[in-house]
């Protein structure tokens, strides 16, 4: 298949890439746009390390051909914090020990931010469910749950 041109809005910036239609969105982000924050853990939609938001929906970027993302808005971990300011979930992960080796962390953060956007006050069951597509081998998830709970509180406080 021949190389084609695609445009994506990644973390608010318009990006153009020339690549094969079946190139994985994950590779486009990592190799063409040099946004290496998004990770590959399995390449088959199981681990969630490659999670990004595509038009606001949580997807595994290893399963998305770039052709399917043409014209879409993409958000990655690099886009979570604005202006050197950590996003509430990033800060909470840092404080609660939600990141150990850090390999699941970008995907986990994107999934957490997505969860909080859809449901600003998730209970523990909703947090467990919201993150069930993101595997972590280091933490046993407890610190991650605590981090999301703390992010809920701190977002609430910031608003108040």
């Amino acid at each position, binding site marked *: 298949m021949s190389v084609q041109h695609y445009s994506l809005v990644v973390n608010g910036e318009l990006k153009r890439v020339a690549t094969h239609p079946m190139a994985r969105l994950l590779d486009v982000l*990592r190799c063409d746009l040099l*946004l*290496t*924050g*998004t*990770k*590959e*853990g*399995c*390449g*088959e939609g*199981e*681990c969630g*390390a490659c999670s990004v938001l595509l038009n606001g929906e949580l997807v595994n970027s290893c399963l998305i051909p770039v052709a399917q993302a043409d014209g879409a808005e993409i958000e*990655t*971990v*690099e886009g979570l*914090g604005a202006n050197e300011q*950590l996003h509430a979930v*990033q*800060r909470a*992960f*840092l*404080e*609660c*020990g939600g*990141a*150990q*080796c*850090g*390999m*699941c*962390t*970008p995907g986990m*953060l994107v999934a957490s931010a997505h969860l909080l956007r859809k449901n600003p006050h998730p209970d523990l069951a909703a*947090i*467990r*469910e919201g*993150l*069930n597509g*993101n*595997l*972590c*081998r*280091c*933490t*046993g*998830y*407890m*610190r*991650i*749950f605590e981090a999301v709970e703390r992010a809920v509180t701190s977002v609430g406080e910031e608003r108040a």
Partner: protein
Amino acid sequence: MGQERIVGKPVLRKEGVAKVCGRAQYIDDLTLPEMLYGATVRSSIARGRILGIEFGVGVPWDEFVIVTATDIPGENEIALINHDWPCLAAEFVNHPEEPIALLAHPDRHLLPKAVAAVRVTYEEWPAVFSMEESERADPVVWGKDNVFKSFLMEKGDVDAMWSQADRVVEGEYATGAQEHLYIENNGAIAAYSADEGLTVWGSLQCPFYVHKSLVKMTGLPEEKVRIVQVETGGAFGGKEDYPSMIGAHAALLAMKSGKPVKIVYDRAEDMAATTKRHPSRVRHRTAVTSDGKLLGAEIEIALDGGAYSTLSATVLSRATIHAGGPYHWPNIRVRSKALATNYPPHGAFRGFGAPQSLFAIERHMDHIAEALGIAPDELRRRNLLKPGQTTTTGQLIQEDIDLERLMDRALAESDYHAKRERFARENAGARMKKKGIGLAAFLHGSGFTGSGERYLNSLAAMDVTAEGKARVLVSSTEFGQGTNTILCQIAAETLGIDYDAVEMGPPDTSVVPNTGPTVASRTSMVVGKLVHSAAVGLKKTLLASGLLHEGYATDEFVLAARTYVTQHGTLRAESRYEAPPGVHWDDQQYRGEAYAAYAWAVYVAEVTVDMATYGVVVDDFVAVQEVGRVLNPVLATGQIEGGVAQGIGWALYEKVVWGRGRMQNNQMTNYIIPTSQDIPPIRVFFEERPLGHGAYGAKGIGELPMDGPAPAILNAIAHATGKQFDCVPLLPEDMFRAMTVGEPAQEAVVL
């Protein structure tokens, strides 16, 4: 304890901001100019002779760099303990997925097709796929008798003791292979030039292991080989030995091509080709009195080491020493052996042999309790080690330990007694869901076994940067467990300066001294102590120089350090390992101080078993432990929780399915680890006592939590169902078979 400003506080992870921003650079995030991508051609059979390698049509082979064993400049060996593990198979293969040839090309998308086009022809030989076949030594696939290593450890007079027994209880226990499943696969980049020598960057635990191995394999002088650890996305022991292999492969391709080469495995290759936890079979025969006193035991341990010896001897050693659990044995004999088979080599995995033998003893204790009609907690209570008693190696317990107190706390936090009684009552009337609660008591030795630390002779250093920041120089690496953070905490505490004024030196063998490998729960205790004394040295020098005066603030320290560097060029202090007083070890008899300190724990698991689906849900998990001083409560709690989750996986989810020596389910789709919805609340408690030999009283912590979950869960399942299962993993299909057909839960999974 309690006076410290930084030690014991939940300071933020050193590299944490980089990790939560996605800025941390892992091996696959790095690209060098003109870099090629490497791939590996692997054996498709378990055992045989290589007859030929053909490069099939349809691939522009002249564009590829091709390496086989004949290109190896030095020894064709991955250097660990023995000299049996080839870097590339030359004439024979001994397991499926054994590396035979290497390919590199600028376009990584061309590699899979090229690998598939390489045809290796073999004369296939009979292979060994079980420990029982290996014991029969027909065929002999390794050495003279398929035995990598054996130990005999004896205390008291075992033969004379049986006559005093009221009861003799026997049991056999088995555990399966376990895949590390770090979320980041193995990977390395190598670059070579005749002038600068060889540099390998990698996802790895032990830079100097890789260094030693590559010096041998390349024949280059030591100073021409440089190993740099980059951010490492989980390891759990799985990046202790294998990075020497993948690093060697990248190095060979780089040396042949003159270009940098990256090899990063995909998940399927990583799972099929790299090491796993040793499968085990442990037999117990125990003499007890009718009131539950352990008189003595005979224990036989067999580990499946796979095709090459790698680290099996040391894994076996730890399994042997931990075989008696945290109990006082007047008499005990442990015979153990690590056997060769034709699976890919099994290697280091968190716990390193201890989870296997502790699973056996902790299931066995429940069997003894049942045989005697004594409650499981009470049987343990009557036999837990006390200060003044000796361990199975004859090590005198000098620490003021109180294991009964640990047990009391675990039982109280889990509401064990009330639940034990209530579940038994309710289960009698329940048909679909039965509940159970079970416990496990255990210990884990901190640091290398026996004389290991003395042989390692580790060196740590501290220096200061041009900006006047203190810098920790060690080869201990960060892969999620918190090395960077705790070592900087110890340094900052000791120097009397802010945590932010201390940084880690690069984990680069050309910069840091050899502090030994990052394994065996040795970092906080052994390396922490070295960092502490190096910090003391640094401080002394500064005070003696007159640039700094007692009672200083951080900015005064920074200014003095900066001035010192301007005046003298460098400021550096070193510290070398010294064995703690009274630590003696006899390698021949396996007697003496096996470890400078032990961590102790009692875990309780509560489960629900669905009698229709045979699914097991862990509802609650209590983990009480004494690990000496807790250096960072958030990190320590995270270590315990993560280890418990891996233990739950090992017990209930993670089954490696083998077919003629090859892992068949080498995908995350069908090798299942616990998700966020499978893990119970894990409630972690520390009985904090600064009893360790490490700085500020720390002991090891990282491996301990892997030891307890599997036996606690299986004990709970026995309580729930009234049936005894003595093998892990225990998946619903295993339980179904045992409950309905009456077959043993563990069938041979060899096809």
